[in-house]
């Protein structure tokens, strides 16, 4: 079975792709519209710089070759919500071509191309008598990512989309509902011929639609039938796909260049754009590069990319063992208070450096780190941490079996943590308690 996806992602600009209409939710239909997005005779498009930048960012994120020069094309098709009966999209020379995405950091899913285009409006069905159109969405920028048919199962398609969207969100700050606003055209072939299920919304529906198609095609083939090349749509309520048109009735889009916009020389722009590494990629890289297990690198990255970056600084400027001991330890535990206070990280690196050179002791180092991160004075930190340590040590003295259990399963520490949280009256953050517990148990092993 082969599955390939065409994924449409709305880009989070403030204004539309070719006109200045706002992209925010409108209070009423057809209120965020102008002559351009209504396709009125005499109107003209002007490209939003941000859309081009986002397109390039995604192309780079997906490892695509970014074109030196890119331009737009007109795709002609007739539909009530397509205000010009022409969609401005890219055909020749899209922003990016020939990339690859590693599912779970391992399996390559080849990316054919990525291009940018405008969204049509939205049509409501009203009975069978007519339709009602809202053009507020008309002209919202989209990126379309097209994959090769490298996806093996419907579940894998969902997994791929989930990871891809998380990465996209990280790179271009997609709003929280990014998953729901994702739209996919899904190509699937169980045998030789493929079908395309158009315009499926959301991850779950992609998996449902593909699963339905897989079963449908398999049944036909088993019964000795033939799959016909066609376009289908997914009925969300009934969970089935329905034939829309056979291949021979496919629209001929008659692509031509869009002369109203000219061309864009994007080499320099592309070189100047640095994209943020995705969380998944960073997790895998940290583990690989510094020889730490993926659990630790994931904890660093999910706590904060800033924390992971600090880990790299210490690993590079001091050494990896100290990065593990301090950054993945007490610094990680107190990261939230550092963030909320807006304290700097350079001081922390300095403290660790002084410990590494033997200027200060282990205890002093821990103390100074905590003081800097929480803003508390030495005495209260010392008192508190001594208090916490005393509480934990007391429990461990009374329940020595915890230490041996912990060696078999780290979850044994939860008993201690639970006890301390309950008996300290919310005095310590859970991260602090976890850190101190693990440190003290490990000191007894």
């Amino acid at each position, binding site marked *: 079975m082969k599955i390939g996806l065409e994924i449409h992602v709305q880009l989070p600009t403030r204004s539309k792709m070719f006109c200045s209409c*706002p992209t*925010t939710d409108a209070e009423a*239909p057809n*209120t965020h519209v102008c002559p351009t997005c209504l396709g009125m005779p005499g109107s003209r498009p002007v490209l939003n710089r941000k859309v081009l930048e986002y397109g390039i960012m995604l192309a780079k994120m997906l490892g695509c070759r970014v074109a030196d020069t890119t331009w737009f094309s007109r795709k002609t098709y007739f539909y009530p919500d397509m205000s010009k009966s022409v969609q401005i999209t890219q055909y020749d020379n899209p922003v990016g071509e020939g990339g690859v995405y590693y599912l779970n950091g391992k399996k390559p899913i080849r990316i054919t191309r990525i291009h940018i285009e405008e969204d049509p409006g939205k049509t409501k069905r009203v009975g069978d008598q007519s339709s009602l*159109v809202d053009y507020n969405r008309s002209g919202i920028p989209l990126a379309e990512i097209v994959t090769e048919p490298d996806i093996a199962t419907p579940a894998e398609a969902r997994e791929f989309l989930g990871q891809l969207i998380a990465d996209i969100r990280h790179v271009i700050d997609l709003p929280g509902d990014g998953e729901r606003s994702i739209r996919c055209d899904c190509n699937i072939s169980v045998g030789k011929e493929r079908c395309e299920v158009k315009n499926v919304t959301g991850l779950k529906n992609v998996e449902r639609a593909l699963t339905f198609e897989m079963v449908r095609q398999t049944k036909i083939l088993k019964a000795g039938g033939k799959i016909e090349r066609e376009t289908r749509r997914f009925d969300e309520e009934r969970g089935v796909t329905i034939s829309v048109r056979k291949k021979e009735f496919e*629209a001929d889009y008659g692509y031509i260049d869009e*002369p109203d*916009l*000219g061309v*864009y020389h994007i080499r320099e722009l592309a070189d100047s754009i640095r994209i943020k590494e995705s969380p998944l990629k960073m997790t895998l890289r940290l583990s690989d590069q510094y020889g730490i297990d993926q659990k630790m690198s994931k904890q660093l990255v999910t706590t904060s990319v800033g924390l992971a970056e600090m880990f790299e600084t210490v690993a590079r400027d001091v050494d990896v063992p100290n990065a593990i001991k301090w950054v993945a330890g007490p610094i990680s535990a107190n990261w939230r208070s550092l963030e909320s206070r807006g304290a700097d990280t350079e001081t922390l690196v300095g403290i660790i450096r002084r410990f590494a050179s033997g200027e200060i002791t282990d205890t002093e180092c821990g103390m100074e780190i905590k003081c800097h991160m929480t803003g508390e004075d030495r005495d209260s930190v010392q008192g508190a941490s001594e208090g916490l340590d005393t509480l934990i040590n007391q429990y461990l003295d009374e329940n020595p079996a915890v230490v041996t259990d912990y060696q078999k399963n780290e979850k044994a520490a939860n008993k201690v943590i639970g006890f301390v949280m309950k008996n300290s009256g919310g005095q310590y953050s859970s991260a602090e308690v976890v850190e101190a517990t693990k440190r003290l148990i490990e000191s007894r092993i």
Partner: protein
Amino acid sequence: MDRETIERVARAAHIKLTDDELERYSRDLGEILTYFELLDEAPGCDDYGVNPVEVADILRDDEPSIRIDPDELLRDMNTYEGYVRGPRLS
């Protein structure tokens, strides 16, 4: 231009042709396309552009604004509760 091609073209263009028109246009277009065969012998080149003069890198800042009142744009449209009326979808 043969009948089948002109019918395919007309369908793509959303124009319905009477038999009379079909015959007339296929004759006209046939004549025109024969003349267009000149293009086959014309010299080509690689460095052609989208426009006759170079238009490059014209971009707009991402600043939202509404310059014309949408009500004015909808004034002459066939609308229902703010929606634009359109034909049946299927």
